[in-house]
């Protein structure tokens, strides 16, 4: 019998998948009915995400709510349908539920043509996204990713904006390449260590017992890094992302940039770095350099943008650089901060895409120079947009701050990575420049001529209730994490500590600047009051 938790976990994947199936099958013949079905398809994962988030026991590491169905899968290869949540996946799972609901509501109200097909594809994507973070088994983790990815291609091709065909082709090839490389890495890992099954825990156990050559491990890590890196838009493999978000319909941009892109980082944190710590350290300098490329290079590109959606897209790619930096440091502080940032980044980026869509709906354009002074007509939208922009640029009070700050802190630990701290911290200026420029161009000042002509044709009204709900939902979550980071931090801390603990000691022992007392001395150092007497 299933327990409630397992039922919710399984349901979060099955319900949207089933809804999607019904919609594909043409069940119900009115758009209205399709929308009602879609509400269920997005509402259930949201509820499951929230409920399981709060039912998760923060004190334990390892998987909870495990659900194993060995008849489903390929037993001969050790592949089982195995679901569960741990401290790293549980906040991401909840985030996927929240963003999914917001994107779903936006899709339901989008008024796209062939709405039933549209909703069917988005529900399928949602099922895949929930599956990615609920999977324990690597095969299914990968499979669910494809479930979410393929609808992306189709939807960009069918409902996309400017040059959708070529964009759809480009990201299909590019991302399939990335997925293929990471798959090769995963398969190699599985084959070489001869684990008893293809899931995270047994793989790490088997790896600890095996004696692989360091060069082999390093090659495997390289495959995973480049493969996942392509999927997460690591510099210089990032150019697909902005084009894709530019062209994609809003809900797809939200789900892809917000949730699906976390797949690769999640893979690196859950699998690659803890399983192959030595290789991670040998690849770390390269990774740090590339991540710095994300922050500085893509940040400068974001400054140059005049199109709102391109700016949001570039900004999101830029901030992924911070997550990579956190992973590249190879310490538990870096990794756990990267996860804090992933959760907040998913929320804030999807909020930005959603608000960009609201703005476009009103101004009939995405060019920022053709807007101006919109705050007069739409004060509430301006309020949301200012909040979202400030969240993305890491203002304290919003979730992003903790992750970014933690990453900076982790970069400062070793003298070898302090160099990256100085340059990565420049990002806080860069993102303020493009973020606040956008606010000023869109909402402040006098309306442009183009906007005047739009204003003379139609009345621009403020956010409606159905628009406030998804945006408010995301903003509330961002504020909650921002004001009370311990909503998500303890479980991340416990889980990461258990995985990265080994790595940390290495760091502490190897290369500490003379000013830093090593970890063992910390106890005495933090109670200076006793030192005095």
């Amino acid at each position: 019998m299933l327990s409630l938790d397992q039922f919710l976990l399984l349901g979060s994947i099955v319900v949207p998948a089933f809804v999607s199936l019904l919609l594909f099958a043409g069940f119900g013949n009115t758009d209205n009915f399709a929308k009602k079905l879609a509400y269920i398809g997005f509402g259930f994962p949201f509820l499951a995400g929230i409920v399981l988030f709060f039912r998760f026991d923060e004190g334990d590491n390892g998987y909870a709510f495990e659900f194993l169905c060995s008849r489903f899968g390929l037993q001969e290869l050790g592949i089982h349908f195995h679901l569960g949540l741990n401290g790293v996946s549980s906040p991401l799972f909840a985030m996927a539920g929240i963003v999914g609901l917001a994107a779903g509501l936006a899709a339901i109200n989008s008024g796209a043509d062939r709405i039933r097909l549209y909703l069917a594809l988005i529900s399928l994507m949602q099922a895949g996204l929930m599956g990615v973070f609920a999977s324990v088994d690597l095969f299914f983790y990968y499979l669910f990713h494809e479930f979410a990815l393929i609808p992306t291609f189709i939807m960009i091709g069918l409902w996309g904006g400017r040059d959708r065909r070529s964009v759809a082709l480009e990201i299909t090839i590019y991302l399939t390449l990335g997925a293929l490389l990471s798959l090769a890495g995963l398969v190699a890992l599985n084959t070489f260590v001869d684990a008893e099954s293809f899931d995270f825990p047994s793989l790490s156990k088997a790896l600890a017992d095996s004696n692989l050559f360091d060069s082999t491990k390093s090659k495997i890590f390289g495959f995973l890094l480049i493969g996942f890196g392509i999927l997460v838009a690591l510099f210089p493999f990032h150019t697909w992302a902005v084009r894709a978000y530019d062209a994609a319909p809003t809900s797809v941009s939200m789900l892809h940039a917000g949730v699906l892109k976390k797949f690769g980082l999640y893979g690196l944190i859950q699998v690659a770095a803890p399983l192959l710590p030595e290789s991670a350290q040998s690849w770390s300098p390269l990774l740090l350099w590339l991540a710095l490329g994300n922050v500085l290079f893509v940040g400068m590109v974001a400054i140059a943008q005049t199109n709102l959606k391109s700016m949001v897209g570039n900004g999101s790619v830029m901030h992924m650089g911070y997550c990579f930096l956190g992973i590249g440091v190879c310490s538990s502080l870096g990794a756990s901060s990267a996860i804090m940032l992933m959760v907040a980044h998913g929320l804030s980026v999807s909020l930005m895409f959603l608000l960009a869509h609201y703005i476009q709906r009103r101004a009939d354009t995405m060019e920022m120079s053709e807007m101006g002074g919109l705050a007069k007509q739409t004060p509430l939208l301006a309020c949301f947009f200012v909040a979202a922009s400030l969240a993305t640029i890491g203002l304290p009070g919003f979730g992003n701050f903790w992750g970014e700050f933690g990453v900076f802190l982790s970069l400062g630990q070793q003298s070898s990575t302090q160099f990256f701290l100085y340059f990565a911290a420049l990002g806080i200026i860069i993102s303020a420049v493009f973020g606040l420029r956008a606010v000023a161009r869109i909402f402040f000042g006098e309306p442009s001529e183009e906007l005047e002509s739009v204003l003379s044709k139609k009345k621009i009204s403020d956010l409606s209730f159905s628009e406030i709900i998804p945006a408010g939902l995301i903003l509330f979550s961002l504020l909650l994490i921002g004001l009370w980071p311990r909503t998500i931090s303890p479980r991340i801390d416990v889980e990461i500590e258990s995985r990265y603990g080994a790595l940390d000691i290495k760091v502490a022992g190897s290369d500490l600047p003379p000013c830093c007392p090593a970890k063992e001395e910390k106890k005495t150092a933090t109670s200076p009051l006793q030192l005095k007497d």
Partner: protein
Amino acid sequence: MQPYYETEGMESVILSVLLLPLLSSVVTLLFLRKNGNVASLLSVATSGGILVFSLYIIFQTGDTVFAWEMTWLKLAGWELKFGFLIDGAARLLLFVVSFIGFLIHIFSLGYMHDDKAKPRYFGGLSIFMFSMLGITLADNLIMIFVFWELVGFSSYLLIAHYFSTDEAAQASKKAFIVNRVGDFGFLIGIVLTYWTFQTVNLQEIRNLVDFDPSLVTTTLCLALACGFIGKSAQFPLHVWLPDAMAGPTPVSALIHAATMVAAGIYLLFRIDFMFTVDALSLLATLGATMGLFAGFCALGQRDIKKILAYSTLSQLGYMSAAFGLGMPGIALFHLMTHAFFKALMFLGSGSVIHACHHEQDIFNYGGLRKKMPITALTFLTGVLAISGVNFLSGYFSKDAILLGAYNSNMIVFVLLYTGALLTSLYMFRLYFLTFEGDSRSKSAKDATESSVLMTGPLLVLAFLSVVGGYHTLFPDPIVGVLLDDISRVAAMPNHLWMVVLGTLAWIIGGGTSKLFYGRAFNGEPLEARFPTLYDLCKSKLFFDEIYGFYVSKIQDPFARFIEVMELLFISGLLVRGSAGVSALFALLAKACYAGKIHAYSFWFILGIISFVAYAIGFLGN
């Protein structure tokens, strides 16, 4: 070491004083967006509540130290605390913030009574009070940084109050970005501090530094001082403050004169044990230079608020110099008296601007003393106080700084003394042009005295500007922190000499001003007599032009260049290129499938030949 405050329950009082304004702004945002009057009353009531709670905290803790903390975030060995540290400095700033904040809230009721966006304004003020109290109470550097950014945000929000003007749109953005440049250094400083001391708690760092003074380095404390330079608008990041005057005048009084910009000095005071001698002398020189430079800039301005803004910069320079000379207590003392008289003058200018229908050019004022006697009288008090007229508040704090400089660093003294001359010169210029002579515009002719909501706070602040220098009048819990440094300065030599010099400074400055502006004139008398000097003052040494040049001619073209590079090399050469190469192979392969029997037999024979060649080792070795 002061004794600790032991009684339980104080933390919940402090927590409520902190959260009260946050709650008020949330309620305003959620429910009172359409109801300006209720929102403004709620905000004023909140600030009243803050004042009451603050006074309770101040007098309960008395002369003890109260420290309390809890875990805010714990990640991989990094434990961030949310905590309060109430010591003498915190009590002083708490008093200044809550008291002046309350007066300015009341003033805003009058000043903003016909504004359409009252909920946004008063909600923003409440967020500001929340963030400012956070800085005041925080017990560790990261928490200070958090609220540091939040005051920056509320300042951004309030500068952008009149967002439909281009000026406000640009100024708000500029203020936030320039502050971020300072915060960049501050952030790095905090990270380095954490890894040096394994803690960011102020008391723990102090103990560690006492234990081993070699832990602090000049780089470290200068990185932290970047935060001060950004927030207190010191050279070279001073450009945002004059532009920030685009916000409503009470905001300029509260945020950009009395409290937020002074938070930089407060930060320095809280971490003063981390400063090395080199860093201190750098800050002293920087501050004194700023004191002089901003004075010159103020002399060339015509906008009443910009003059006051430059005067704020100059006074912050004095505080920085006092800190750099090793008298942090005097810096705080000047912070307090400056808060009184500068808030007074900003509110006075608000009263004038309100009466003259948002006319801000002092050359379009004149003769307002007869029309607005209370405003004029209180403003004059402020002018006298800032000029250091004997026995008013500014006299005590400023002369203490001058005396300290005279006895330790002659260069700094000369800079500061010249600055003092300039201060009385431009302040009296402002006074004469605004309140004396004949009215020079229609709006000045029609001006009438403001309502009691506005003149009331002016009178209270004028009273404090007069007596604020007598620290013995204040209860000990508030000014206790100043006593050490004040008695040190009192024991210094050359007192009488300084009294003479100080008196001369304001008499010369004021007299010159009277000579130029105290009688009938055409145009700008200073410009007529010394055109080069005036132009130089007006140019503000071209800092805005230089930064403007950097942004439009270097940063933006560079960003576009990077964008083109991305398009050319990454999207083009790498992505399209590899797609092109594979397409080329496909094309070649396709050419082989010619669909003609000759071609296939040709390939077939070629294949056989190469196979045979390989087999007999022709191609191999």
